């Protein structure tokens, strides 16, 4: 018995090491590629770069790829849409969680059904709505599309709202607080853990989204990170070593978020599945 356990433990580590290798192999080749010169890239294979302080590729990426502009634009879009998202999400959750009214069930159902509509394919029609609103080729387009609360967000917020004792609301009412004050001073602060999780998840999703910016903001000045790196491929493709540097830079923000805020991300992912 003891022996099979030991063999099984060894096997577990063996499988984990293989999985780690598969995860790291592509990342490793990008990391070393980013520090190599063009000739070195094509000649040295998987070897480590000669000079870890060779930042030429990174400089070129910022010049040619307009990554700086991309980061600036996506930051603006992120701040506005995530802030709006939190405000709307908490408001909807408060209204649906604390009050019983005729439209409560239909509104919940509306969010649930909207989830099964494949967003990519409805863009044909969404496109004309955005054009009609005059938001085409401006930052208003992605912001409008990201602003609305989604069902996952509402479900997570509702769980939290329901776990806040109603006694708190009632004692505030006795002291004469308005309903808006109850939302602002009691409900909103107590939703903070859920808000943290949702901000992080939304930020990662929006940062990673390619299609919305690609479709609705074709102007050069409106490049975001996704569309900036997209222009590295295709007819005007950059050298592989320069592309590697670009990929590495683009990876960094979400990796940093992930390393420091892991537990919020895992909480969000696990909560999302149990819905």
């Amino acid at each position: 018995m003891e022996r099979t356990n030991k063999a099984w433990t060894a096997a577990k580590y063996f499988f984990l090491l293989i999985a780690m290798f598969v995860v790291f192999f592509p990342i490793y080749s990008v990391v070393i590629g980013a520090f190599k010169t063009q000739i070195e890239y094509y000649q040295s294979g998987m070897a480590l770069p000669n000079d870890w302080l060779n930042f030429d590729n990174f400089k070129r990426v910022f010049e040619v790829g307009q990554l700086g502009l991309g980061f600036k634009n996506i930051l603006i879009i992120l701040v506005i849409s995530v802030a709006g998202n939190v405000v709307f999400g908490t408001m909807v959750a408060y209204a649906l969680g604390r009050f019983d009214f005729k439209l409560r069930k239909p509104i919940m159902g509306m969010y649930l059904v909207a989830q099964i509509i494949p967003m990519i394919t409805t863009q044909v029609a969404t496109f004309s709505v955005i054009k009609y609103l005059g938001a085409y080729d401006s930052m208003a387009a992605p912001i409008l599309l990201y602003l609305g609360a989604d069902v996952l967000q509402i479900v997570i917020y509702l769980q939290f709202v329901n776990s806040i004792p109603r006694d708190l609301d009632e004692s505030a009412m006795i002291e004469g607080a308005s309903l808006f004050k109850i939302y602002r001073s009691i409900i909103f602060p107590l939703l903070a853990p859920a808000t943290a999780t949702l901000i992080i998840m939304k930020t990662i999703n929006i940062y990673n989204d390619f299609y919305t910016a690609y479709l609705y903001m074709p102007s050069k000045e409106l490049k975001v990170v996704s569309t900036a790196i997209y222009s590295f491929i295709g007819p005007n493709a950059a050298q592989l070593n320069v592309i590697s540097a670009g990929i590495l830079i683009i990876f960094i923000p979400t990796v940093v978020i992930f390393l420091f805020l892991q537990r919020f991300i895992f909480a969000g992912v696990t909560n999302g599945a149990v819905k």
Partner: protein
Amino acid sequence: MFNLSYKAQRYLILFGFLTIPVLLSLTFSYYPALSLLYYSFTDWTGLGWDMNWVGFDNYKEIFTRSDIFGAFKNNAYYFVGGLLQTALALFFAVILTSRLKGRNGFRAILFLPYVLHSVAIVIMFKNVYHAEYGSLNILLDSIGLTSWQQSWLGNPNIVNFSLAFISIWKYFGLSMVIFIGALQSIPSDIYEAAKIDGASGWQSFRFITVPSIRSVIELMMILTLTGALEAFDIPYIMMLGANGTNTFVSTTVDMAFKFQKAGLASAMSIVLLLIVAIVIVVQRKLLFREGK
């Protein structure tokens, strides 16, 4: 506001808090979905507003043109890849919920690809798969498997596997973490009781683990299926649909924005929407039946 009765406040709050979110959802989810239905019966080009009613012509075209409906064949690669991914994710989730040193570290590392930028991942794999200078072929060469070298994106028999693998690489960690969450919710005394009764590791897995997380396994299968039906960005970014890698959605996008056949693309979207809806309804029915 302070002078209003709570009844009046209630109306104000409900109206003020729900109007904008509901309008957003109606404008950007429901209105597009409904107008798609209308466009799907027209010959709209997507430019301007001229369109003629053509009845079911678009739908006929979808089911008779092999390059349109046949694109689902390529979605099958992502589905098979997704099944493999779900099985692997469950396997590693079981490993990482057992007593093991450094399991939180392993969990974090295996989850890492999920947070990486999606376009950058695809371009990274473009470098890895590069026929001449790609790190995959270099690796195969250096470990003496030169004969295994392939033109990973050039060979039409292989390219879809290469693309589906990227999807596994990216989403494997997500499935695994969801499974870990489900596994941790199983009370450990059940396993101890089974051990006392002499159950083997496999028996506990088969008769305790699997039934306990059945709903999560089902959910993952549905996500795999709908995800595969909607597979789009990997082939679109990597190949621009070339070399027989078009999926149904990337074909739809091309029809709408490249070939100016918005009417046909709308009909394709409706077909996809119906398929996804049917899958979900069937799953819900099955789930509820088991609940009884």
